[in-house]
């Protein structure tokens, strides 16, 4: 943008800082309380403690929920990456029926989760599928599929057609071309999509609440606990999850951004 007069730059910077403060203050609260004791809204800065982390290690209920979340996340990632990639490969370069089916794939992502969740809830009941972790995994997969599909499809579209033609010219079969040329080119998009899918699954709350059985994932467990108020060790867990999430973001950026910049430069 062109140079702005000084007062407006200061005004814009002030609003931006305000937005940053607003966005980060809700994250700041649990992190501070994981190291310091808070009573009646006052932080006791004098005595930092790690006791919340020790207490967390003994909270089997929460650790079980965390394990459930990880299991659901991994299953969701596997299912969504496999089916998302297949769908992207199938619809890439195909015109007939693509826009309609693509729209269907995107629906659960566009619709409010309460609608997707309730639709699945009734669907599972109609086909007689008991609510369990399986239904949660299906719900999550349906939800994140659009992201994986889109990530892979965009990579396919930016991939040069000549690579595949060269492979066929050199006498490779369809299989060989797929395994040696197409798949390696897609791998970083698939990893990026997998990380996004995992991050979304890890925090998915609204669909999960509707389709889960007796075993609950971490967000649902936290949601149930929240009515009664959290014990301090939850703050420790939150601080750890935040660190983990930031790590995931950095990884996702690493897998997704460099390639896109490279293609832009070409």
């Amino acid at each position: 943008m062109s140079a702005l007069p000084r007062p407006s730059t200061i005004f814009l910077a002030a609003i931006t800082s305000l937005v940053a403060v607003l966005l980060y203050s809700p994250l700041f609260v649990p992190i501070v309380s994981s190291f310091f004791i808070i009573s009646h809204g006052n932080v006791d800065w004098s005595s930092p403690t790690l006791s919340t982390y020790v207490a967390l290690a003994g909270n089997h209920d929460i650790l079980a929920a965390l394990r459930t979340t990880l299991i659901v996340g991994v299953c969701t990632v596997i299912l969504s990456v496999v089916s998302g990639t297949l769908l992207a490969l199938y619809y890439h370069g195909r015109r007939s029926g693509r826009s309609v089916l693509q729209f269907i794939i995107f629906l659960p992502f566009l619709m409010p989760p309460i609608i997707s969740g309730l639709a699945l809830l009734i669907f599972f009941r109609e086909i007689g599928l008991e609510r369990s972790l399986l239904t949660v995994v299906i719900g999550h997969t349906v939800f994140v599929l659009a992201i994986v599909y889109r990530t892979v499809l965009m990579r396919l579209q930016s991939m040069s057609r000549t690579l595949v033609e060269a492979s066929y010219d050199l006498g490779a079969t369809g299989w060989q071309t797929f395994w040696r040329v197409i798949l390696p080119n897609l791998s970083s998009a698939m990893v990026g999509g997998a990380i996004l899918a995992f991050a979304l699954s890890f925090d998915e709350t609204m669909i999960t609440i509707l389709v889960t059985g007796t075993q609950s994932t971490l967000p649902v467990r936290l949601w149930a606990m929240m009515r009664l108020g959290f014990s301090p060790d939850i703050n420790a867990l939150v601080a750890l999850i935040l660190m983990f999430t930031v790590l995931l973001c950095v990884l996702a950026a690493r897998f997704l951004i460099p390639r896109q910049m490279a293609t832009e430069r070409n």
Partner: protein
Amino acid sequence: MSGVGSTQAAERRLSQLVTVLAFALPVIFVLVPLAIFLVYSFFSVDQGTIVHSPTLGNYVRFFTDPIFLPVFWNTIVLCVSVAVICILLAYPAAYFLTTLKGRWRYALLMLLLVPLLMSYVIKIYAIRSILGLNGFLNKALVALGILDQPSTLFVFNMNAILLTLSLLLIPFAILPIFLSLERIPQTLLRASDDLGASSLQTFLRITLPLSLPGVASAASFVFVLAIGDFLTPQMVGGISGFTFGRILYSQFGTAYNWPFGAALSVALAIVVIAAILIGERFGRSRGTSV
């Protein structure tokens, strides 16, 4: 030779399987559930069991009962307000980002988007503790002398829902606005400058109109996410903060009337589709490809 033939046959079978899957997966797990859901909205409930005979009763109830339409309307107003607040905060921030150079621009953008990926439930809880009677907001307002004593104005009512949803959804407004601002060709701004326009004139007559598609997408994103949320109102809304999402959710819990809940969902879906279409219509950028 037969080896080659059987690989080809295997490939053909595989591609047939992929074709079937490519159509079956989205249809079975997305379209069929939504269709059943729609059909359910025409059923009714009698003494705790679902009656599978078609009726318009649920829709009649929605339009005639004095409870539902006002709540529906209030929720729409609430979510429009959330969208307005988000855009008022996100637009200057996104504009500021585009004034930065190279690396800084994207680092700061990332910084403003990262909170999106952090636990939704925890954020709601933290915001509630900030807004509460003993929370940081009240403490700050009392310390600044704006309030004499801590107020319950910000928790367990509609204000609380408005503030919490706005805080949660700002990043969704920043991204589309940033992208539309970034797409504005620099040459246009320079031309405007050369022709003697002040920076305010340039902003009002070039930047703002060209960034409106981004604002429209941002508004529709935020609105759709806000109206579908039933966790936030449940958590910070208390008794007075009753939103459509909460009523809808209660039909599948305490009220136990799935068909009526399905009818309410249809109403919600219509508003959401309208919002997405409006966002699409005005979100399509015109003239930025100059």
